[in-house]
């Protein structure tokens, strides 16, 4: 006898509807599973058998064939355990086929019949061809966020059967309010003595400009990166669903009961492998950190310590805002719309407080800085150098002799700055591009026109070779964002351009050799 049950599997971050077909026929007792199952999927035979027996039902002493259609796609993971078990019970006549009409199943089975959660339930629920979905209790809330679907759960296989037969009732997930805010992010006002850096994170948040911070240890690079997330606007429902699907597919814990509201903040360690950053890894095609930071901030601390291969793979996704991963058995596209924030020390000893101050040799400094390739460096619209706050100032502030406010007047809270960022983003999005960083070169003349004064400032730098054509475009985009933050929508003023240039320091430049024009020589008399 034949039975058919709906389910879904995961390829990358996308769900794929699967029809589980079980045929039970006369012949030597046996069990075969076809339709490109991977190892975890093939092992479902033993889990399903034990679960059915320990739930007080019987295993058919006949020939059982399981087909996972469409059979051309490789299926991974254990989420098909429950649909296989249900289809088998129907095919064996222990359950009526009518009860699974328009019902899908996604769960792993324990040997005792317990239902267990699997990653990517949200993405699978999206793909499912059914109106009702049965999942394990721990995935119920996640499944419930999928629109147009009734998600229910039960603790064990025997409960599932009882509910299907109407002898018991499903557990409904607690309805949750997706707009409940998560814990407030760390406050920008905590950052002292870094006025330029505070402005840099504000501009980065408002314009979607990638940010590189170079500074000695203890300057507050990580602190600033964490605060940048709080400045980004909260996610819209569709964005939150995208983020949740990626996180679910990556097996990350979703925030309790609700869709993520805050943009994600991911800070992979510098020893991370290429695959862990961009995604992939076998047929499972797990999304990498780059995709986990989708719609949020990817923070790479100690940028110079990441392997060169990892850094250079970032270049293409940063441009395309998605990453295409191809493996022998599968190929997929992961979303990767991230705001990249990177931090590094100025040199191996980290104590570079200006030319002539550190112990590293010129060659060592040059090697260290050269680890960030030119093309990658080029992706950073904002490059700033951070200073370690003066110890004496901090001590004075702690002892109450001077306040932190006096040390750095004009500190603003995250809420104030975030409001300004939201306004600037609203203005920017009216121009037809998500952020100013995304304005294509061809539209710059229209969207970021330069005033005469601003043009002159840039012209001098172009003539001196301090600015490339590409650098010019980036300065214009940042200047546009600065003007947007100030509510100025006219031609870019000199102050906007100067502001953009101030946020584009020569942080990784190597000391100039005396070959060619000595910068000060022309002016020294």
């Amino acid at each position: 006898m034949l039975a058919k049950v709906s389910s879904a599997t995961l390829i990358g971050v996308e769900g794929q509807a699967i029809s589980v077909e079980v045929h039970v026929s006369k012949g030597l007792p046996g069990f075969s599973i076809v339709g490109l199952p991977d190892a975890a999927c093939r092992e479902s035979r033993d889990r399903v058998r034990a679960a059915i027996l320990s739930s007080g039902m019987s295993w058919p002493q006949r020939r059982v064939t399981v087909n996972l259609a469409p059979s051309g796609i490789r299926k991974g993971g254990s989420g098909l355990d429950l649909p296989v078990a249900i289809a088998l019970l129907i095919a064996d006549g222990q359950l009526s086929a009518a009860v699974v009409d328009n019902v899908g199943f996604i769960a792993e089975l324990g040997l005792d019949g317990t239902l267990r959660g699997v990653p990517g339930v949200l993405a699978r629920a999206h793909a499912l061809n059914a109106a009702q979905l049965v999942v394990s209790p721990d995935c119920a809330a996640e499944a419930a966020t999928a629109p147009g679907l009734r998600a229910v759960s039960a603790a064990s296989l025997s409960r599932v059967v009882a509910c299907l037969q109407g002898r018991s009732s499903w557990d409904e997930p607690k309805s949750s309010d997706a707009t409940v805010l998560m814990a407030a992010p760390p406050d920008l006002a905590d950052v002292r003595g870094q006025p330029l850096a505070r402005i840099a994170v504000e501009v980065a948040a408002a314009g979607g400009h990638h940010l590189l911070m170079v500074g000695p240890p203890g300057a507050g690079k990580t602190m600033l990166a964490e605060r940048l997330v709080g400045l980004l606007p909260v996610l819209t429902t569709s964005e939150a669903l995208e983020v949740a699907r990626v996180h679910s597919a990556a097996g990350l814990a979703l925030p309790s009961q609700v869709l993520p509201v805050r943009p994600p903040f991911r800070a992979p360690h510098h020893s991370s492998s290429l695959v862990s950053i961009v995604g992939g890894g076998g047929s499972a095609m797990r999304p990498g950190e780059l995709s986990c930071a989708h719609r949020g901030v990817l923070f790479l601390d100690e940028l110079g310590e990441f392997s060169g291969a990892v850094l250079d793979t970032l270049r293409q996704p940063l441009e395309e805002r998605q990453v295409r991963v191809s493996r022998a058995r599968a190929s997929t596209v992961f979303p990767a719309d991230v705001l990249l924030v990177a931090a590094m020390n100025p040199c191996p000893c980290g104590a570079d407080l200006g030319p002539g101050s550190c112990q590293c040799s010129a060659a060592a400094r040059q090697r260290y800085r050269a680890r960030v390739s030119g093309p990658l460096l080029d992706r950073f619209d904002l490059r700033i150098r951070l200073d370690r706050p003066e110890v004496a100032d901090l001590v004075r502030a702690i002892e109450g002799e001077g306040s932190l406010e006096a040390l750095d007047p004009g500190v603003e809270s995250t809420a104030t700055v975030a409001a300004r960022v939201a306004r600037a983003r609203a203005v920017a999005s009216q121009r037809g591009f998500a952020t100013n960083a995304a304005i294509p070169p061809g539209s710059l003349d229209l969207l970021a026109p330069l005033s005469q004064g601003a043009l002159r400032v840039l012209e001098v730098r172009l003539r001196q070779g301090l600015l490339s054509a590409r650098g010019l475009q980036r300065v214009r985009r940042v200047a546009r964002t600065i003007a947007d933050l100030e509510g100025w929508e006219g031609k870019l003023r000199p102050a906007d351009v100067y502001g953009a240039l101030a946020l584009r320091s020569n942080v990784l430049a190597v000391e100039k050799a005396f070959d060619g024009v000595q910068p000060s020589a022309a002016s020294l008399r």
Partner: protein
Amino acid sequence: MTGCGEEGHAYVAALSALPGMGPANLASILRRRAPRAAWLAVQTGRLERPSGRAEGPGLGLEGDGGPHRGPGWRALAAKVDPPEWWRPIAARGIKVTWHGRPDFPEALQSDPSPPGSLFWRGRLEALRNPCVAVVGTRNATNCGIATAYELGRDLATAGVCVLSGLALGIDGAVHRGAVDAVKAGASAAPVAVVASGVDVVYPKRNERLWEEVAECGAVLSETVPGRPAQAWRFPSRNRIIAGLAGLVVVVESHARGGSLITAEAALARGVEVRAVPGAVRSAASEGTNQLLYEGAGPVRHATDVLDSLGIFDTARPQRPHGSGQLLLSSLGRTVLESMGWYPVTPNQVVLTGGVSPAEALQALDELEEKGVVVESAGFYTRVR
């Protein structure tokens, strides 16, 4: 010295290239034998490698197995014909002289540990002017670089032969200043004493400067052409700088550094050492400030050097320091007054100057244009 014509040079060069040949040994050999005779003595085994000493591969031949081992001089000399080996080197404009020859630099004839032979490109006549060594750290501040550049330029303009080591940082700036002065018409050309062979540019970044110094003045070295700069050659090179100079000026030096070795070598030869005072908190001035503390005279600008040398009759450079006479906008002046003399980032300018980032950069732009401030790797330093 016995006359030996052009051939003698090839034999001296070949003798210098023998592994384990030290300057004292070479000088003593050449005192006793004519170059060609000395080579014959090597070939016949009457002159052998001193035991326990080794240096380099020797004549560029394979098989020198390190100290105490490898082929002796006799075996090496059997394979080499010095005139033939030397001809292509000489064709590249590289010359050689040795201790005792009339063209050997006068100041080194009486040196306590003179080089046995000297190789050079350019014209050694540059050394006839009063010689002042201006040296300093490779890892210099912008202030130090600017000071070194000015010293090199102003001393060359005043007719002083500027000696330095063609390294990165201070040495390069000194030479650049002197070369620029020569280009502008100064008659006194600079001389560089380098650690590698005169045809092996080190550091590579100074290649153009190296050529320019060789063109107008001279690049000289104790090292046989073709040999790389090895760490141990630098202190030994520094003693030649000290030996050639009538005065040594250290512009910037960290607490330990090669320029302090030059200063020590100068003091051992009774050559006056002077130092450019630096900010007490600047790591790059720790060594020079220590020299000053120990009694070295200060140098503020080229005039101090000229006074010390007793040169009063040349055109004196104007004092370049001070920003009082500069026409600055009020924003520029505010920022300049807030920034002090240490390297600062735009962030510090914003913080201490109480200006916006855009204003800070506008002011720094103006100051840079007027030559008051120099930018390097994201830091701005006031240089006058």
